């Protein structure tokens, strides 16, 4: 943003921009794929001869997949992301996951979002703990797309859940009445939520009024629309530093081929559109994807896969060198599988998240984000 732009911009924008030396913020975007993505059919180990044998009807044929390095290929539906791989911005981290053995969606999502596998009592989320205290935070410093605040962003640092930017307003000129009512309320919980709400309302209203037109078309899915709105806030230079979006439906116990293709098409198109929309700002945006666990190495009897263990995560924006599959391949031989059924974890998911956090803000206190955990750099 140039000085001239600042002069023309509304006062809040100038204030937000003035908070950093270069007038803009870096943004970390976490994407959660709920339901447990079948990582083995996403980052496909064609170099492991057991792959096809384990999946007689579900294996993606080598000739239709997108070859990455002779060993791994990408699912063909991820084609929109291939240019980002080739330009070395997109990286994959294989065989990632949690040290906790749970195969419950609820528990595994909870552990991944709290960032404390095996510990249920943790009240706040890893992404919230990654937010360092600051004197005058932007009201939209942390955004969670959707009706409820994501577990990852729950915690003491202010974070706002937003369905749509345009609709984020109090109707009938009642805003100031509600504002004074909540500001004075003896209900501490709702008083706090109210404060976050009204600050965000004013800022988002301004962003919505001033947003430039975009020629990029996003998918109409939750994820696509969520990322579109995150891009709008980033482009406004409003001080967004931590964002969360999710995509659901990855629990492919049955009829997997068509469903996975649809989900991956949406994922790839949404991220590709987001990257294009950000333009030059994309260099300041780190994206990391995650899903609560992987799926059984072997297909089940119903054209699907059941709850498994390790999975693949993706990183976009330079947290890890792109165009490369990181991590260690544990192998698919029976004795190499976790509990003789699932891909084993060789990289803790916290190492991937920590790498993304460090890239986003090197000053982050990782011991606070992942308590009782010793960070190991990704192999």
């Amino acid at each position, binding site marked *: 943003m140039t000085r001239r732009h600042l002069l023309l911009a509304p006062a809040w924008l100038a204030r937000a921009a003035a908070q950093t030396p270069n007038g803009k913020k870096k943004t970390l975007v976490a994407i959660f794929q709920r339901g447990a993505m079948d990582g083995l059919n996403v980052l496909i180990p064609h170099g492991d001869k057991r792959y096809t044998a384990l999946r007689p009807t579900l294996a993606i044929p080598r000739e239709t997949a997108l070859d990455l390095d002779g060993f791994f290929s990408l699912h063909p539906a991820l084609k929109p992301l291939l240019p980002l791989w080739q330009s070395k911005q997109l990286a994959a981290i294989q065989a990632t996951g949690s040290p906790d053995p749970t195969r419950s969606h609820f528990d595994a999502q909870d552990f991944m979002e709290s960032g404390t596998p095996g510990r249920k009592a943790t009240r706040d989320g890893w992404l919230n703990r990654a937010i360092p205290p600051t004197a005058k935070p932007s009201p939209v410093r942390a955004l969670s797309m959707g009706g409820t605040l994501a577990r990852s962003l729950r915690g003491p640092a202010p974070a706002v*859940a937003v369905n749509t930017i345009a609709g984020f307003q109090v109707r009938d000129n*009642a805003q100031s009445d509600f504002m004074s009512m909540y500001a004075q*309320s003896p209900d501490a919980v*709702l008083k706090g939520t109210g404060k976050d709400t009204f600050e965000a309302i004013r800022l988002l209203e301004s962003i919505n009024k001033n947003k430039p037109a975009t020629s990029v078309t996003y998918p109409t899915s939750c994820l696509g629309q969520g990322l579109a709105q995150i891009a709008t806030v980033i482009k406004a230079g409003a001080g967004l530093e931590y964002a969360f979006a999710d995509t659901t439906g990855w629990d492919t116990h049955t009829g997997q081929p068509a469903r996975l293709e649809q989900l991956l098409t949406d994922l790839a198109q949404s991220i590709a559109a987001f990257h294009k929309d950000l333009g030059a700002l994309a260099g300041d945006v780190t994206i990391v994807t995650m899903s609560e666990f992987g799926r059984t190495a072997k297909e089940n009897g119903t054209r699907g896969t059941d709850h498994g263990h390790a999975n693949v995560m993706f990183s976009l924006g330079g947290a890890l060198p792109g165009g490369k599959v990181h991590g260690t391949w544990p192998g698919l031989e029976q004795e190499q599988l976790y509990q003789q059924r699932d891909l084993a974890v060789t990289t803790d998911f916290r190492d991937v998240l920590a790498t993304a956090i460090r890239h986003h803000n090197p000053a982050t206190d990782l011991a606070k984000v992942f308590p009782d955990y010793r960070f190991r750099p990704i192999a």
Partner: protein
Amino acid sequence: MLRQFLALLLSLSLFPAAPTKLNKDQRALHAASRLTFGPTPIDLASIQKLGVDKWIDQQLHPETIPENPALLERLKTFETLQLSNKDLIAKYPRKPAPGGDRVQTVYRELAEAKLLRAVHSTHQLEELMADFWYNHFNVFFDKGADRLLVTSYERDAIRPHVLGNFKDLLLATAKHPAMLFYLDNWTSVNTARLRGRKKAAGLNENYARELLELHTMGVDNGYTQADVTEVARCFTGWSIANLREDPQFQFRPLLHDNGAKTVLGQAILPGRGQDDGLQVIDMLVNHPATAKFISTKLAQRFVADAPPPALIAKMAATFTKTHGDIREVMRTMLKSPEFRATSAYNAKMKMPFEMVASALRATNATVTNSLAIQQELRAQGQPLYRKGEPTGYYPFAEEWTNSAALLSRMNFGLALTQNKVRGTRIDLAQTLNNKTKPIEIAQALLLHAPAPETLKAIESKSETNPAQIAGLILGSPEFQRK
């Protein structure tokens, strides 16, 4: 020094640490708030007439309370509610003829009926229990065939047992095609006996896992992954006959794994077919972890987000003693000092469905078409019958206190009181008895005095339109609590 010591002694004896009690009015309002979808002056009058305990007893026996005849008349107009699975499928084929009936009608009638019952039924506790148990045994409406199965699921598997026996309820859900389809058990087979493939190649653990984790014992309460697999083997063959035309529960012996199994350390003898699953259900109902888990979930919904362990212990003891008599577990909870403690008073955050239903009850609203209300519930994060995950919705405050949802609540309050919610009408002047002072409006809608801070905010307004003031009250912090 001596004086301080005496003062300390005095304070210790006069103010013991026991929970302070609610006064009579608070007790009545507390019961009405927690055991209905939002207190109305009629509920309060009924409680004051009968006394709290008798009123609770009556609500625990809904068959003794005449149902609202206007509600029954209205529900009669919803044709799909009475149809069997077979008739629903015949009427709503997957590819409807041009101008034919749309499957959306099924959802519309189901969701509207749930809302109307919550708002107008005289069996308020029963309706809360129906909501609780559907949520506990959640099925996602939009999962394929379930769109035509959920109507019967709620009507035939859930509602008859909401205050009955937990085992009947569990078994009814286990056998209903909606659940068999939702958690994939109908596809889980022992293919070894069919095609000579490797044993358990067609096993699907989804239902078995949620049965243990979400329906009975609770996660981490004494079972292992091996138990999940063994339970899945026990339920192979619990399937659906004729899914396309007339879905019914059917045990298919040929798909069942008849080998010996071990569940929770107990042997399941080989060759017993359907009895494997029945034995597992029996074991689970009588397992102490189930008594504790079900008691905890009930107390989290009705008493506090973090209910006192002493209360859970009492409820679990009743559950065990009565072999899962839900009514008696509820009675233990509702008559406990923990339920009536001041710490419980107005301490629960309303879930979105509770907030919306309570606003409609407080304003005596008439809903002729609930589409806009259903969209509102989606915006607040709780679309009816549409929780994808088998966990159901959480009753915890932190789940619902976020900016987007709070903003939706404020806007809904304003829209409702100004008659700007499509399909819904209120007569505010009549509801308020033509009262127009801010304090009177607040009292009429909250049934208790507003916080001084809230009162100040509505009294300091330059504009004194009663509808707007009523909207501010529905969006106030107090109205979000129960």
